[in-house]
């Protein structure tokens, strides 16, 4: 506001007498056309009504807006809302910037459990890799380049490296104490931790292209690693014994295929021991639950749960916001850096 207009500002002083036409002319000016002429109080008021996503957008609009958003606490922005909604969710951390990490977690709450988390990250591969598995204090990463790397979580060091044969593309992999099993092209490849590699072709020759794979955990091992879930135990105390070490159980690889079937391969006899039709659309991801149920998601956005011992479909879940893209997220997080110590939970799993 220029100095001569200042005299006529209502907040300053009232006009002593009806203005002459000369006065009038002096006062006439172009009405402000941008919100830059608004002070930060009004902008902050608008920001109050925006959610976190829009706030972040606004923080990139210009430096002035950015300064407003970054300098105020989230509490300040939400105070009004909280009062209005009587919501119990009062943000506690002082600066907006400081809690954005937490908000991002919330955004991905389908895949990530809320709570305190510690993220360590390091460079794992020279190119983007899209799969990672974590078990027993170790992480295996791969798919995207020609190596699979095994990392120790204690030291954040690459312990072992396995190369993928040139003529095949690695699709998916899984691992246990003794070996890493990869789905390459239409074959299974087993890398033994002692260095031997064996590849076996699809037995039937006409192997439908697989898109994901898990190995069944060796049931000999560790009841300690696999405590019965309290819920399950309470409901069904008689079945607890099934969680105890069993006699030897052949290792199997479970492969989700593009034709909507899940095929179970016996890794010793190298045979397909079971074909389970789970979806009508290609399967994008699958995982095995502790009680050996197979949970799979398809491109059509549905999730199916099957019990291979009875070949029975246990449940089918369908969710409009659970498109195939999201299903990938549930089980494999695309990473080229490895994010750890995040508890990944299959939120759609009904049993836990």
């Amino acid at each position, binding site marked *: 506001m220029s100095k001569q207009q200042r005299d006529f500002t209502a*907040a300053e002083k009232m006009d002593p007498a009806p203005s002459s036409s000369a006065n009038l002319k002096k006062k006439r000016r172009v009405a402000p056309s941008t919100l830059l002429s608004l002070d930060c109080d009004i902008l902050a008021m608008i920001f109050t009504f925006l959610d976190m996503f*829009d706030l972040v*957008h606004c923080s990139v609009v210009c430096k002035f807006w950015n300064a407003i958003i970054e300098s105020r606490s989230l509490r300040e922005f939400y105070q009004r809302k909280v009062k209005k909604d009587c919501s119990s969710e009062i943000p506690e951390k002082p600066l907006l910037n400081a809690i954005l990490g937490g908000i991002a977690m919330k955004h991905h709450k389908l895949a990530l459990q809320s709570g305190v988390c510690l993220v360590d990250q390091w460079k794992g591969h020279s190119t983007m890799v899209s799969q990672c598995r974590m078990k027993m204090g170790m992480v295996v990463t791969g798919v995207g380049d020609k190596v699979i790397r095994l990392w120790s979580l204690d030291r954040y060091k690459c312990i072992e490296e396995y190369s993928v044969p040139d003529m095949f593309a690695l699709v998916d992999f899984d691992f246990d104490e003794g070996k890493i099993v990869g789905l390459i092209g239409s074959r299974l490849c087993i890398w033994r931790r002692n260095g031997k590699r064996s590849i076996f072709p699809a037995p039937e020759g006409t192997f439908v292209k697989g898109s994901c794979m898990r190995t069944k955990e060796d049931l000999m091992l560790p009841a300690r690693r696999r405590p019965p879930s309290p819920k399950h135990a309470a409901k069904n105390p008689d079945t607890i014994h099934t969680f105890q070490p069993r006699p030897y159980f052949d290792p199997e690889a479970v492969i989700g295929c593009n034709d909507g079937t899940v095929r179970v391969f016996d890794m010793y006899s190298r045979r397909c021991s079971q074909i389970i039709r789970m979806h009508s659309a290609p399967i994008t991801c699958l995982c095995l639950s502790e009680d050996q149920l197979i949970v799979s998601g398809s491109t059509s956005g549905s999730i199916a749960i099957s019990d291979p011992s009875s070949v029975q479909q246990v449940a089918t879940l369908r969710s409009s916001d659970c498109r195939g893209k999201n299903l990938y997220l549930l089980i494999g997080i695309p990473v080229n850096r490895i994010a750890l110590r995040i508890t990944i939970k299959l939120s759609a799993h009904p049993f836990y």
Partner: protein
Amino acid sequence: MAEKASPSSNSISLKTVDGKIFKVSPAIANQMLTIQPLIKDSDSSTIISLPDVAAFHLTKIIEYLEGKPAAAPSAVDAFEAQFVKDLSPEELKGLLIAVGYLKVNGLVDLMANTVAKLIENKSVEYVRKFFGVVNDFTPAEEAKCRQEHAWAFDGVDED
């Protein structure tokens, strides 16, 4: 509406930037917090100038203050919805500036909320264009900001 007894029972004259003079009752004027302190000193011959307010905007503000039902919240909601329904985005922006300047009871919230709804889930470029804000970030700075909050830039509506 909080009717406050004003020392002056005369109407207050408000003059907009485009030279129009509006006579309003003290009860109405009292709800514009910016001019509130001036009211008790004024009489019928006083004209209060509002350099940031155009006639159209003052008309709307008075319409709001006079028309707002005092009773049930639902009636207020309906009235407010109707009030902003006919305004174009351009008019909304102008009105927001005027309302922000005058600090009009209740209307500040309503306008801010309405404007906020217009930029909800819009791209940064849309917001800049909408408000006529010049981007003073360097491309590198902007890229850095976006990188920091990459999670928030998925699934923005088409402009």
